[in-house]
C-alpha cells in the first residue's frame, strides 16, 4: 500500500501495523496547558491524537489551534472538523490553515446538533454535509483545486477520515453508508464506541462482503466506562449508542469502588476480541476526561510499544 500523504497514521497503517489513536477534548477556556497536559499523558501510547471540534456543541477552544499545539509538541494530530459551524469558505480556509502547519490528518463530521450545547439558540450552517466535506478535502488534495474550481497553491496533504456508527439506524444501510463514504474518498474510519461486539462483528462481515475493508482502514472506537452510572447514561441518553444490558449489569454487579477498573477490563477485553476481527486495522480509544487511563489500556491490550515509522 503506497502512501499519498506525509501522515504518520497513514504510514503506520500502510505498513500493516494496528494503529492506535486517541482523542483530547479542548478546554472551555484558553489555557493551552489543558491540551498539552492531556497530550503528554498519552503521547507515547498512541500514533495520532484527535482533537474534537466543539463536541456536543459546547463552545470550546478551536480544534485547529489545539492541533497546532500538538504539532508544536512534535505529535501527530487528527483535525476533527464538523460542518455544523462553518460554511464552505470557512471549511476550506481552515483546511488550508491546518495544512500550513502540516497537520496531515482530518476527520470529517457533521457534528452534534447545536441544541445539545451551550448555544441552543444559535444557527447551524450545514452548507455541506460530512460526506461532501470528505469530497472537498480529497478534491483540494488530489486535484489541488478549491470547490470553486481555482487552483490551490501548495494543496493540503491530508489523510482523510470519517466516522461510522455501526449501531445507528436504519441498520440495513449501515454498510451501504460506509460504501458511500469510501466512494466519497474516506481513507480511514473511526467508529462510534463499540459495546455491542456481536452487532459490530455483523457489520464488519457486511463490510468485508463488499470488500470495503480493503479500501478503507477501519479503526474500532472504544470508550472505557467509569461506572455503572455512565453505562446507563450512555445506553439511555446518548443518541446512536448501543450498550447491551450485559455490560450495564456487569458494572452494576461490581462494587462501586471497583467499577472503574471493571470498565477498563471490559475495554481491554473488547480490544482483544476485536483484534481478531478481519478488517479491523486499529483502535480509536476515546477516554472521555479520563486520558490518564489510555496508557494502561494500550499496554494491557498488548498494543505497546507503538511502532516507530
Amino acid at each position: 500500500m503506497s502512501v499519498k500523504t506525509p501522515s504518520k497514521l497513514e504510514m503506520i497503517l500502510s505498513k500493516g501495523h494496528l494503529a492506535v489513536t486517541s482523542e483530547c477534548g479542548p478546554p472551555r477556556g484558553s489555557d493551552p496547558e489543558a491540551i498539552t497536559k492531556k497530550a503528554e499523558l498519552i503521547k507515547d501510547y498512541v500514533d495520532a491524537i484527535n482533537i474534537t471540534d466543539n463536541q456536543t456543541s459546547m463552545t470550546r477552544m478551536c480544534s485547529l489551534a489545539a492541533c497546532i499545539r500538538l504539532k508544536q509538541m512534535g505529535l501527530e494530530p487528527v483535525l476533527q472538523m464538523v460542518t455544523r459551524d462553518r460554511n464552505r469558505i470557512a471549511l476550506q480556509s481552515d483546511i488550508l490553515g491546518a495544512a500550513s502547519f502540516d497537520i496531515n490528518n482530518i476527520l470529517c463530521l457533521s457534528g452534534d446538533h447545536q441544541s445539545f450545547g451551550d448555544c441552543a439558540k444559535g444557527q447551524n450552517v450545514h452548507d455541506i454535509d460530512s460526506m461532501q466535506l470528505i469530497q472537498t478535502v480529497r478534491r483540494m488534495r488530489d486535484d489541488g483545486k478549491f470547490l470553486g474550481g481555482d487552483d490551490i497553491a501548495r494543496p493540503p496533504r491530508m489523510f482523510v477520515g470519517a466516522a461510522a456508527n455501526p449501531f445507528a439506524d436504519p441498520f440495513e444501510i449501515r454498510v451501504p453508508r460506509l460504501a458511500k463514504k469510501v466512494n466519497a474518498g474516506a481513507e480511514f474510519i473511526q467508529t462510534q464506541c463499540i459495546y455491542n461486539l456481536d452487532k459490530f462483528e455483523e457489520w464488519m462481515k457486511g463490510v468485508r462482503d463488499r470488500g470495503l475493508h480493503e479500501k478503507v482502514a477501519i479503526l474500532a472506537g472504544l470508550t472505557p466506562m467509569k461506572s455503572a452510572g455512565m453505562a446507563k447514561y450512555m445506553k439511555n441518553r446518548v443518541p446512536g449508542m448501543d450498550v447491551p444490558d450485559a455490560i450495564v449489569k456487569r458494572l452494576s454487579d461490581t462494587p462501586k469502588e471497583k467499577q472503574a477498573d471493571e470498565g477498563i477490563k471490559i475495554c481491554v477485553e473488547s480490544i482483544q476480541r476485536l483484534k481478531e476481527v478481519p478488517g479491523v486495522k486499529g483502535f480509536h480509544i476515546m477516554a472521555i476526561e479520563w486520558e490518564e487511563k489510555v496508557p494502561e489500556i494500550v499496554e494491557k491490550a498488548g498494543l505497546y510499544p507503538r511502532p516507530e515509522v
Partner: protein
Amino acid sequence: MIVGDQKPLEEIWEMIKNQKKVLVFGCNTCVAVCHTGGNKEAEILGSMLRMKAKQEGVDIDIKDSGIERQCEHEFYEKAMETLEWPDVVLSIACGVGVQFTAEKLGNKPVLPGLNTTFMGSVDSPGLFTEKCQGCGQCILAETGGICPVSRCAKRVMNGPCGGSTKGKCEINKELDCAWQLIVDRLKALGRLDDYEKLAPIKDWSNERSGGPRKIVREDLQV
C-alpha cells in the same frame, strides 16, 4: 401552506396598549387553515384584547376585520375604507401579509400578531408539520419525495447522521428522522440502490443565501 403561531397575548398587548384605535386584521387563506390568523381568529383576538383593555382600565377602541388574502392587491379593494379608520393595524397574516399591508398603508403602523413559522401540511386536525423551506432547487426526485432540507435538523444531503435512533431524530424522540423516512420510501419504491448515489454539493444560491428572490413572468405582466 404557510403556518403561523399567534404571539402571546401579553406580547400583542405590549405592542398596542398605547394606541387609541386598533384594527385586528385577518387573512383568510393559509393562516386561517391553521386557525391562527383567519378572519374568525381576528374576531376572537379582538374580543380578547377588548377584555384585556377593560381589565387594565385602558381606553382603546379595538375592531376586527379581514380579507381573503393579504398578499394580493385585489383583495384590498373593498377593505381600504376599513383600513382608514385605525391608528394601527394588527395584522394576523403571515410575515408576507404584514409587509404587504404595511406597503399598502404607507405611513400607518402595521404590527404582526403572529410568528410565521413554516411552510407545511395539515397532517391531522390540529397537527401541522414543516415540509418545505423553499430552497429553490428541489431534490425530492432523488430523495423519494421526502425533503431533507426542511425535515432533517442538519439538512444533511447524504444522511442519516449517526444520531438517528429507532427512526427518530437525535434532537427529539418525537421527531421522525427524515433519512429513515427516505430509506424506507426508497425501499418501498424498489430504489434502495439509489441510496448509494452521492448527492452533489448543493447550490444554495437559489435559497435565502442568494439574497431576496423574485420571479418575473413577463407574459403575465400588465
